[in-house]
């Protein structure tokens, strides 16, 4: 029953987290007190209360709100995709990034920044998709995709795109180089309504597909033979889920930049809390993945005077956790 309480708590958590985030930011013009004053003023019928209602409005609704929503969606997309990919490849140590998504997207973004006339977001998305697709088809042999060959091809594809990224960086002047480096550390500071508009449909569509297939993932997680003989075509389902995961996570990466290890860690935390049943953990990854990234982003905005890139934060938190997982879990390489 304790677990049920925990689950309910996890579902409710995003509401206070979203609200609190609206109050957090570097500018005094929209501090908590000012917002309360303005809300109170609005309720009591005064039109112009607070110091500068127009500015307050701009900061809260045009700067903070789109960023909060985008951060939440990004966290959700990475967590749900990570959980799905771990389930279908029966490997708790994979996520979209290990399949080459991040290096593909980083190369795409860098290329766009170097050539100026290509939109960064589109290019990051296309190359992220391309990298995962390449990993998948390199690993595919006789209609089968084995775990080891997928991880290996992910490493190779990542290597190729990292090399290409280095080439782009090498030929970029210091100004462009600096932009590229910033992009690869997380890009949420450029969040806005337009970015949200251009990304939320593919993100939510991908999440929705994974949500629909969430119980199937339990079957796929048992193994190909077991899935096949109980009436499911594992290759078809895996490909569809992989497509959905890639769609969601590359759309997220395209707007948010590289947020390392996040898609690996959140599914593990959720699994530790409520167990491996994907029927429950997919929606919980959605709410918890979003909420947790929001909290990290709040931290990165407030912990010091300047913004610490969010990708750096997740990487520093994630790496020790990853090492802990390697030490603790037995990875099922057999079969």
């Amino acid at each position, binding site marked *: 029953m304790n677990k049920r309480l925990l689950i309910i708590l996890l579902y409710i958590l995003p509401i206070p987290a979203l609200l609190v985030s609206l109050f957090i930011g570097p500018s005094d013009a929209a501090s908590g007190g000012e917002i309360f004053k303005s809300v109170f003023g609005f309720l009591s019928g005064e039109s112009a209360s607070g110091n500068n209602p127009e500015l307050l409005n701009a900061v809260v609704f045009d700067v903070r709100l789109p960023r909060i929503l985008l951060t939440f969606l990004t966290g959700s997309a990475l967590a749900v995709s990570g959980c799905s990919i771990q*389930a279908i490849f*029966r*490997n*708790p140590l994979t996520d979209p990034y290990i399949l080459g998504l991040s290096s593909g997207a980083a190369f795409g973004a860098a290329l766009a920044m170097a050539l100026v006339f290509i939109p960064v977001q589109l290019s990051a998305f296309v190359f992220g998709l391309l990298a995962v697709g390449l990993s998948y088809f390199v690993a595919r042999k006789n209609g089968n995709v084995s775990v080891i060959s997928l991880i290996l091809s992910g490493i190779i594809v990542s290597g190729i795109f990292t090399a290409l990224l280095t080439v782009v960086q090498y030929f970029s002047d210091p100004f462009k180089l600096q932009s590229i480096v910033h992009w690869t550390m997380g890009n949420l500071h450029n969040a806005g309504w337009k970015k949200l508009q251009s990304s939320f449909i593919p993100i939510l569509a991908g999440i929705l597909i994974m949500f*629909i*297939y*969430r*119980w*199937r993932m*339990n*079957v796929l*997680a*048992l*193994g190909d*033979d*077991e*899935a*096949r*003989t*109980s*009436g*499911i*075509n594992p290759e078809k389902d895996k490909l569809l889920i992989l497509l959905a995961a890639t769609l969601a996570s590359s759309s997220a990466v395209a707007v948010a930049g590289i947020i390392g290890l996040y898609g690996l860690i959140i599914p593990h935390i959720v*699994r530790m809390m409520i*167990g*491996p*049943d994907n*029927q429950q953990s997919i929606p919980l990854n959605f709410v918890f993945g979003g909420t947790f990234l929001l909290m990290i982003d709040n931290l990165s905005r407030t912990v010091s005077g300047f913004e610490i890139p969010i990708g750096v934060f997740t990487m520093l938190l994630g790496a020790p956790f990853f090492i802990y997982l390697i030490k603790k879990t037995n*990875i*099922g390489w*057999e*079969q």
Partner: protein
Amino acid sequence: MGAINQAITVKNLSFAFSGLKVLDDVNTTIEAGKLTFILGRNGSGKSTFLRLLAGLLAFKNGEIEILGNKSSQLSFAERAKITGFLNQQHKAVFPFKVEEVVLTGRAGCINFIPKKSDVAMAFQAIEKVGIAHLQSRIYSELSGGEQQLVMISRLLAQNPKILLLDEPTSHLDFTNQMNLLRLLKTLVAEGLTVVSVLHDPNMAFVFGDDFLFVKDKQIIRSTPNFEPWDAGFLSFVYQSKLEAIPYKGRAILVPQIKVVTG
């Protein structure tokens, strides 16, 4: 009667693994409502034959008919209603609970999310195998014998007419082996057809109804006209000198011991 009684008919089946022939022009039948054991040496092709029956391997030459359906034309979902398959050993990567594992047996009948009736069927299957006490335990933390029982519950939840089992007792101790084979016997008595690969011919002769011997890319089937309790035949199949000791109209095999005196 004949045709109705055949659960599986294999006609002119040949199969090769990357050019190496494993089965050559095999013709045989498996009768419905019986416990049939597939026997033979390691590498003789027992498991390959079983996987061909389960549709896990595709063949080019010959045909397998399962309850009147051509195997090559069955979809995954259609096949799941007819045959269920149990792997030799199953390793779980994620710490699923027993009930969650058993429920996945219903996959063929579930669109996306299990209904209450599916959960109920899974629970019935768990009770039938007698592992209700394990229901909420973590599958990967169970003993080998318990894990096999869970996987058999999963097959029963799937509710096929024919069970295909690949060496279900290979990792079990003597007591667990007997318990599992008794369970299979019960299931057959309730109307299921069970086909199982088995290492131990003695256990097979104690529990089985019919026997298929895989030898030299061929399958030799026991019939009323051909009873295999002949020490010569079995020594040929197992390529070892054996003595057959009569037991309840069948035989128990004992190896001949060559004592070297010096």
